[in-house]
């Protein structure tokens, strides 16, 4: 305690220099917290979107995600209704949503173009949240009337390409599971956007039953399982795998390639930037400690003459750096919390990422875990830098130190 007291007193010797080092440390901590906070927000958003997109656990034919189908629904999933009933009886499962992935041609009578179709249960729009944006018209009706013309949602660029508006008619051409061409007249219910222009140029969503009618099948491509507590139930896929060993059971993480890629990329970019900021802190503290040792060389000689051990003198300088590291970290964490809160009040929009059309709001998460890690790293770098800077000073012979001018 007495050394810490002396270290605290020593910080007041050159207040301007101490303040400058403290502020640099705080700004570095703010930088690390802002970068990591932005990355964490991005991870969390992408994770949420990935979990909502297809379900937290996806059931399919065992080979469905492993190889391409030769004919539509060659690797389809049968007895879907029974599966859905069984799964929905499980209290840990909120709901299940089936989906068919298919492709074909869509024609307005004058022009035909390729589409990438999804036969969906309309509840999926609520589940998927803000991932898909309705630009015109309405979402698909929850129940499909047997008399009504089947409805579709078209990607914005696909609708523009076909020059159709909600209410216009189109014809879908697809191949049945037996390889026979089939056609289905549909009406445009709405125009949607995923924010990815390439996807919007091909995307078409239709009721699951309409897709099954076009493909002449009662199978589906995949069955998404939505859990009651998706963030807590980490190993639900294993439970379902044990329950249905004959099916392919895929956790959402294995399907979330975009999420994983962004995470890997950001971890590297922000990791390197974080290390650079830490090295800057280390240099600043090394500089401060070096100057302090040089200015106090004579005093170091006095302390040594009075019987202070070398490791005690080293400890004194390390504690000074420790205090700067701790105070700088604390200040930086407070500044980061202020920034994080401020961004909730002030709407700052990020520009659209490459390949997308829409920007997104900038938020920065303030993570206690990250705050702890950052403070620890800053303190560790500060202590190492101060230790290195002091070693030379304390190894000087006492007489030489006492005669230092």
């Amino acid at each position: 305690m007495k050394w810490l007291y002396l270290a605290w007193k020593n910080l007041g010797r050159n207040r301007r220099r101490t303040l400058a080092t403290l502020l640099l440390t705080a700004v570095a901590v703010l930088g690390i917290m802002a970068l990591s906070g932005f990355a964490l927000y991005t991870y969390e958003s992408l994770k949420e979107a990935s979990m909502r997109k297809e379900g937290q656990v996806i059931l399919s034919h065992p080979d469905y995600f492993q190889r391409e189908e030769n004919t539509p629904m060659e690797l389809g999933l049968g007895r879907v209704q029974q599966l859905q009933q069984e799964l929905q009886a499980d209290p840990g499962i909120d709901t299940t949503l089936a989906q068919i992935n298919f492709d074909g041609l869509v024609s307005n009578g004058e022009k035909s173009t390729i589409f990438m179709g999804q036969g969906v249960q309309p509840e999926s729009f609520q589940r998927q949240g803000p991932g898909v944006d309705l630009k015109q018209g309405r979402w698909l009706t929850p129940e499909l009337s047997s008399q009504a013309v089947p409805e579709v949602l078209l990607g914005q660029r696909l609708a523009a390409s076909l020059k159709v508006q909600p209410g216009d008619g189109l014809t879908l051409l697809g191949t049945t599971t037996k390889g026979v061409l089939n056609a289905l007249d549909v009406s445009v219910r709405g125009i949607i956007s995923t924010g990815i222009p390439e996807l919007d140029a091909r995307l078409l969503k239709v009721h699951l039953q309409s897709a099954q009618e076009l493909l002449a099948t009662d199978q589906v491509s995949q069955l998404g399982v939505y859990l009651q507590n998706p963030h807590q139930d980490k190993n639900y896929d294993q439970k379902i795998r044990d329950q249905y060993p004959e099916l392919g059971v895929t956790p959402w993480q294995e399907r979330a390639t975009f999420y994983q890629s962004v995470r890997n990329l950001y971890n590297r970019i922000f990791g390197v930037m974080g290390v650079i900021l830490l090295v800057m802190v280390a240099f600043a503290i090394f500089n401060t400690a070096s100057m302090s040792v040089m200015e106090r060389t004579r005093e170091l000689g006095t302390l040594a003459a009075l019987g202070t051990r070398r490791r005690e003198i080293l400890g004194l300088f390390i504690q000074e750096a420790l205090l700067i590291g701790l105070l700088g970290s604390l200040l930086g964490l407070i500044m980061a919390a202020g920034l994080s809160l401020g961004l909730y009040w002030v709407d700052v929009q990020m520009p659209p990422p490459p390949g997308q059309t829409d920007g997104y709001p900038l938020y920065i998460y303030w993570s206690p875990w990250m705050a702890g890690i950052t403070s620890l790293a800053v303190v560790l770098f500060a202590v190492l830098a101060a230790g290195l800077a002091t070693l030379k000073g304390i190894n000087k012979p006492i007489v030489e130190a006492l005669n230092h001018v």
Partner: protein
Amino acid sequence: MSLITIQQLHKSYRVGKQQQAVLTGIDLQLHQGEMTALIGPSGSGKSTLLNICGLIDQPDSGEMWWQDQPMDFSSTAKLTELRRRRIGFVFQSFNLIPVMSAADNVAYPLWLRGDSRAAIKRAVQTVLEEVEVAEFADQLPDALSGGQRQRVAIARALVKKPQLLVADEPTASLDEETALVVAALMKKLGREYGCALVIATHDDRLKPWCDCIYQLHQGVLQGGAA
């Protein structure tokens, strides 16, 4: 019995490419309760001899005994422990720690020794009263005059009741009146605390206070009892 006995001590420094002898064949004894002065012009080697006595420098050759124990200058840890517990220092320019109050400066050696807070407080108060600067206990060194600072430095040297007090030009930075007061104080307290007192000085005003006076000339020691 002498506290410190030095026999045939030699010390030289490298100046450029040449080795320059500073102390040659020094024999010296320091006794507890006695004040010994090392007198000589600048560069005569008195500070070097003083530093060796205070265990902050080491000889090239020769023998030194602390009471009847031969000194091992290769053991830094042992030398540090001896300085910590048994040697007090008074420097020409006081060398007080500027961020600590007078009382904290005086308390520092006891702090190092690990004394209790109450014991430190008592000892500091006593010694500050003895050197007559108790009223400045809470002042930082910068707020004190030269004489007051040197009194605080003497208090810091004596507070642990050392066996040896080493003073390098203790009056050089003081005016005549203050120098005499400080010399008298050192003599008085040195005797009271029963420590051997060795002073390097070229201040003739100190001679009347010394029990032994040695003249250093070109690395050779001459003289003895005053």
